[in-house]
């Protein structure tokens, strides 16, 4: 009897794990397959049935760097993502603080931001393309940085508001009594206290910038292409050179996976917290 019960409990404990292993496999398999394709010899890629055991080669990676400007593209991506993240998190936090504490922008401020946040990127890109060509920002990294910084502001502000409202007001009142101005209070007290939120937001925004495609494909020139645009350039509408594009895909995924693994808890909370707490 005891043994049966033990067995049943064990099974009951096991099946969530079986489900999780199943979802994990389904989630991870496509990426694993891409990685396997990227280290296959071109001859091994197009074999029926697919080979699971093969001699790995790095030719596809070598080709990506030698025959294309992928090295440059990935550097462009880093510059644009890092600069945009810093600008939008800094500017956005300031605005978020003024909205969270002093109600600047009124009750409809957040709703307005939400409208911008949910706007499909195809809507603003048409006039921005025309305007960028007129003022000469077309094809420049600065232009892309400006665009990413501003288009991520609503997300930054909405995320940071949810972190700022949790800071007890007494701390700020104490700072005012000690003679700090609002800006000083923000820089010396609020920002250090919000490191968690700032990190979550920054990591999240970096990933968004790193992955952004539509603005980049429309606004970059040969020398300023980012990694997603380069990957797209490899794909023709007839076919797809599986080996090299997989190599490029893997190289594009690695940085975000590293960032994700480091800042996981921050990102997961950042993604869910603003919505869960409102309810």
């Amino acid at each position, binding site marked *: 009897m005891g043994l049966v019960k033990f067995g049943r409990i064990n099974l009951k404990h096991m099946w969530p794990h079986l489900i999780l292993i199943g979802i994990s496999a389904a989630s991870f398999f496509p990426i694993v397959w891409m990685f396997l394709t990227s280290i296959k010899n071109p001859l091994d890629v197009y074999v029926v049935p697919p080979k699971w055991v093969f001699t790995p080669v790095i030719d596809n990676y070598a080709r990506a760097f030698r025959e294309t400007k992928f090295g440059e593209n990935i550097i462009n991506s880093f510059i644009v993502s890092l600069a945009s993240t810093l600008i939008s998190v800094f500017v956005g936090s300031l605005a978020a603080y003024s909205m969270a504490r002093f109600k600047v922008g009124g009750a409809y401020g957040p709703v307005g931001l*939400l409208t911008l946040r949910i706007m499909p990127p195809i809507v603003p890109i048409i006039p921005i393309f025309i305007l960028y060509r007129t003022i000469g920002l077309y094809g420049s990294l600065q232009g892309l940085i400006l665009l990413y910084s501003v288009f991520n502001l609503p997300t930054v502000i909405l995320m940071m508001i949810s972190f700022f409202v949790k800071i007890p007001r007494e701390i700020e009142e104490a700072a005012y*009594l000690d003679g700090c101005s609002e800006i000083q209070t923000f820089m010396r007290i609020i920002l250090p206290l919000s490191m968690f939120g700032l990190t979550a937001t920054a990591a999240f925004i970096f990933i968004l910038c790193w992955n952004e495609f539509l603005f980049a494909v429309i606004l970059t020139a040969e020398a300023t292409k980012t990694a997603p645009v380069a990957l797209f350039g490899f794909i023709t509408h007839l076919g797809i050179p599986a080996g090299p594009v997989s190599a490029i895909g893997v190289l594009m995924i690695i940085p975000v996976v590293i960032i994700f693994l480091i800042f996981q808890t921050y990102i997961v909370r950042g993604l869910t917290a603003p919505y869960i707490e409102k309810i």
Partner: protein
Amino acid sequence: MTLFGGNDKVRKNLSRRRYAPYLMYAPAALLIFAVTIYPLLYSLYMSFHFWELGGEYLGHAFVGLSNYISVLTNPDFYNSIKMTVVYTLGAVTLELLIGIGLFLALRRPIRGIGIYRSIIFIPMIVAPVAAGTIWRILYDPDYGIINQFLSMLGLPTVLWLADPKTALLSVMLVDVWQWTPFIVLFLVAGFQALPKEPFESAQIDGASLWQELRYITLPLLSPVIVAVTILRLIEAFKTMDTIFIMTWGGPGTATEVISVFTYKLGFRYMKTAEAAATSFIVLVAISLLLLIWTKFVRFER
């Protein structure tokens, strides 16, 4: 002396508090105005004028509503609306069905969930461009692993992206792959934020598992489910990159959602003004979605 000095400082700060917050708010407001609001107004202006890429020498005459009329009489526009609705509702419905099912199986605290969470979160952070590339390789009719698996099982193979009948479903499945885990994690987070008492009293009263789900878990969680549904609907509505990479709206117009339609109109057929007009129709539609959202989620802050 110190007392007065202190009071002076406080009073000074109180008076300064009037403009310092606006100073903090100003950079963001100015940037958003210059790079978002102004271009949108410009786009509205464009939509009432003649405007074609490469046709600048023809000038930009005022044409009234004719751009809107040509969009609204374009059968491809209605096709793209249909595709967007089918894509958005289809993908989100699948994600919700699978997501809620998995959530129900996983809602109790599980040891080692962190490792699984790391893995199932990864599809979400993969660039849509890369996700589209991965799935194009998997969907390949001849060499793709999916068809090879089907034929190994003796099942008929499918053309996936190349067949107008399956192309939309194929691109939807990529969205399902990327975002179902998000729904599960979102619901688990929401579930853990719920008060524990109702569940305890249900247990004391001897409620069955089904009764607990039907009368406690799902009703208490419904705001979370509504929130995640609307969030996903909005994001799915914006989908463009994966479709761009996998099908470019094709075959024919089988996967041409509204964003892809607008892109082609503006950047391929160079009808910039018509694309601007379409984008305003999209903006009105998305604002209606927002109105629905604000009905469910209040923003008091």
